[in-house]
């Protein structure tokens, strides 16, 4: 059947059709929907793991047991899972194991622009790279076959434009695959004596995979009208090339991005006058060509930063660049903002007001960094708030203890915040950690996590008790506040910063966008009382604006949280009591 599918949905369909029966992932844009879609198939067990490392190890265990398995993550998630990745390369698999990694060139929703293709080469694991949804489905199925044929996990590399583009796919039926588990210590116990014997197996496998790549059906040679130029490309870059040049020049499209063929590329290079490599981010294909003694035109022309597009390809191939007319006006930016009613807002306001140094983390609450709150000092990666604060306070010999905090969400705390907290307790820095518990993984679009009490399929699950966990790792001072209550927040922050031992404040209030969260009536403005002081504007609520010098509330956005009411010294903003 022909249907329109998101690239991520097509990977999920490929998992289903390939007989995959175990999926463990951690959400991360742009990879999240793969696991959400696959969870809809009853034949597939699917879960959210606390982090990518756990997910990959669980997927390895399932493959070892004889079930085709999968884990999915964004590019930076693969850093977290890199430890098992490099060693599962040595052990190989029993039933097939596939890992999807989604890059984010252009950083639509990420903290860096790393190129995951390097992981394939350094971990010596083959990587397939689809260029649309139809290929996402087909390559996912092929990845399982290759995994079993070559006894290796296989990476499927997505990117924002493939993951979040819908295109036409043809669906097929599911096959069932189940292998027997047999104990095999020399293959699966990676201690030095065994690992030394596995490394040569990996190198031989790479040779065999390179041989496979020479004639693989997913490495496609498309003929062109003129051999003046020849283009090697893959993924979205292939689509931009074809969009602009059609069949003007021959194109060698790599569906398998590692290992790359040698002879096929040399033959292609010899068949054209000028060799051009079109690829996003790093010069990965280009470096391979250079290792073969070729000197293609590549990164020097196209650069290593951001996404490519058809206009960039037009420019580099000396074609006219199109552009519409500009309007004669200064168009203000529209950056993402914390939603109206967001429970994080009151807490960040309190931190900014008290001029506290805030080491932040990854999630919706990173938006506490933008104006007018400007409440965050540093953000690096998942979990780095807590561990970073520990180092910050230790380096200051206690001088910053009373005026600095770490801020981290519930899901991020489960992911990799806990270990940082253990470090604070164990190595005794007098640090204060604030866990923003909004009862969901917010940024990636509402995924369940170990603190929410529900699993990926929506069924009730063990709910991790944050207070008990913090106490168990050695934090004696643990308290819970309601971030809608500014006084309570301020009192708690001041007391915990003043205390002479480490502490945790749990700021608890569910995300205002959750369906079960009941909103209050929108606040009303008593214009006569409004003195235009703009205090209410300091919290950056999209529901509040000033018109003709008076505060105005947008009724369609206001959730009646009442944080602004607490800021107004003149009683101009009022909550409406529910009848």
């Amino acid at each position, binding site marked *: 059947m022909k249907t329109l599918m998101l690239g991520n949905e097509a990977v999920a369909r490929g998992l289903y059709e390939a007989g995959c029966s175990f999926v463990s992932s951690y959400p991360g844009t742009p990879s999240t929907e793969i696991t959400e879609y696959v969870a809809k198939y009853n034949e597939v067990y699917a879960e959210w793991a606390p982090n990518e490392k756990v997910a990959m190890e669980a997927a390895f265990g399932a493959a070892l047991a004889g079930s085709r398995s999968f884990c999915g993550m964004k590019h930076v998630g693969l850093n977290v899972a890199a430890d098992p990745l490099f060693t599962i390369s040595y052990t190989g698999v029993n039933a097939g194991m596939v890992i999807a990694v989604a890059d984010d060139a252009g950083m639509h929703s990420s903290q860096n622009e790393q190129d995951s293709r390097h992981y394939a080469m350094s971990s010596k694991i083959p990587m397939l790279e689809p260029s649309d949804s139809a290929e996402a489905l087909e390559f996912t199925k092929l990845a399982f076959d290759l995994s079993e044929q070559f006894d290796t996990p296989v990476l499927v590399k997505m990117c924002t434009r493939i993951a979040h583009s819908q295109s036409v796919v043809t669906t097929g039926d599911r096959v069932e695959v189940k292998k027997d588990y047999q104990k095999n210590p020399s293959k699966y116990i990676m201690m030095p004596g065994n690992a030394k014997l596995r490394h040569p197996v990996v190198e031989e496998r790479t040779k065999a995979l390179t041989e496979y790549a020479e004639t693989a059906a997913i490495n496609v040679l498309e003929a062109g009208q003129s051999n003046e130029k020849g283009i090697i490309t893959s993924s979205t870059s292939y689509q931009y090339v074809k969009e602009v040049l059609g069949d003007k020049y021959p194109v060698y499209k790599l569906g398998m991005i590692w290992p790359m063929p040698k002879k096929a590329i040399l033959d292609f290079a010899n068949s054209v006058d000028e060799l051009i490599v079109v690829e996003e981010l790093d010069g990965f294909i280009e470096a391979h060509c250079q290792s073969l003694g070729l000197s293609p035109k590549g990164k020097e022309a196209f650069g290593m930063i951001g996404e490519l597009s*058809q206009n960039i390809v037009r420019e580099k191939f000396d074609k006219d660049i199109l552009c*519409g007319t500009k309007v004669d006006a200064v168009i203000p930016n529209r950056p993402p903002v914390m939603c109206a009613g967001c429970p994080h807002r009151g807490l960040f306001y309190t931190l900014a007001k008290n001029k506290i140094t805030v080491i932040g983390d990854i999630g919706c609450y990173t938006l506490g960094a933008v104006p007018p709150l400007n409440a965050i000092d540093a953000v690096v990666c998942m979990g780095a708030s807590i561990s970073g604060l520990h180092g910050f306070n230790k380096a200051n010999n206690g001088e910053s203890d009373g005026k600095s905090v770490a801020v981290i969400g519930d899901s991020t705390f489960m992911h990799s915040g806990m270990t940082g907290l253990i470090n604070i307790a164990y190595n005794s820095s007098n640090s204060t950690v604030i866990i923003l518990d909004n009862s969901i993984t917010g940024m990636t679009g509402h995924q369940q996590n170990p603190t929410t009490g529900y699993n990926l399929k929506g069924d009730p699950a063990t709910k991790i008790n944050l207070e008990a966990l913090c106490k168990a790792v050695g934090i004696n001072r643990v308290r819970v506040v309601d971030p809608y209550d500014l006084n309570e927040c301020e009192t708690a922050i001041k007391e915990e910063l003043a205390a002479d031992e480490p502490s945790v404040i749990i700021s608890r209030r569910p995300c205002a966008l959750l369906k079960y969260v009941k909103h209050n009536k929108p606040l009303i403005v008593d214009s006569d009382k409004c003195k235009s002081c703009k205090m209410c504007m300091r919290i950056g609520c999209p529901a509040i604006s000033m018109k003709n010098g008076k505060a105005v509330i947008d009724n369609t956005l206001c959730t009646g949280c009442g944080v602004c009411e607490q800021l107004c010294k003149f009683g101009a903003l009022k909550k409406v009591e529910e009848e």
Partner: protein
Amino acid sequence: MQTKNVMIVGVGGQGSLLASKLLGKLLLTKGYDIKVSEVHGMSQRGGSVVTYVRFGDKVYSPIIDKGEADFIVSFELLEAARWTEFLKPGGRIIANTQQINPMPVITGAAEYPEALDEKMKAAGINLTAVDALSLAEQAGSSKAVNIVLMGILSKYFDFSEDEWYQAIESSVPPKFLELNKKAFALGRGVN
């Protein structure tokens, strides 16, 4: 057929994804090759959002670049003005005249430009500017702005009214069907 390009732009949370879903379903039944691209994540939090819909005999690129859009359907006036460079010469912008202040305007760091519809016309842009929010409310819900705008767009396509209604039927829950059909008809009736 040469590839046609429709951009759907607006503010995160306005419902532009349903509009692209509807369009995608309709185009699939007509046998076109289609690509619909959206960006999730950070851009959803009240930021600028853009969806690209491309269809034709064979569609390669998932995105629409500057100077390529046949139509830009905008859910908000400032967003229409933001993307004019993406319009093809002779293309058309269909804009909801609703204004939603972005954060720099709310905080007073920037101003919402005056008379953007006049300025777009002055720049030689074919503009259909409609108060789609009022029409949606007239149909029964402010959330139906997306379907009102699809109704306006539908006049520029050769598909029958029935084909559009079938696509609406397969895209919205049954209990909202009548409301959305009404919203579509109000949009299609705009001159």
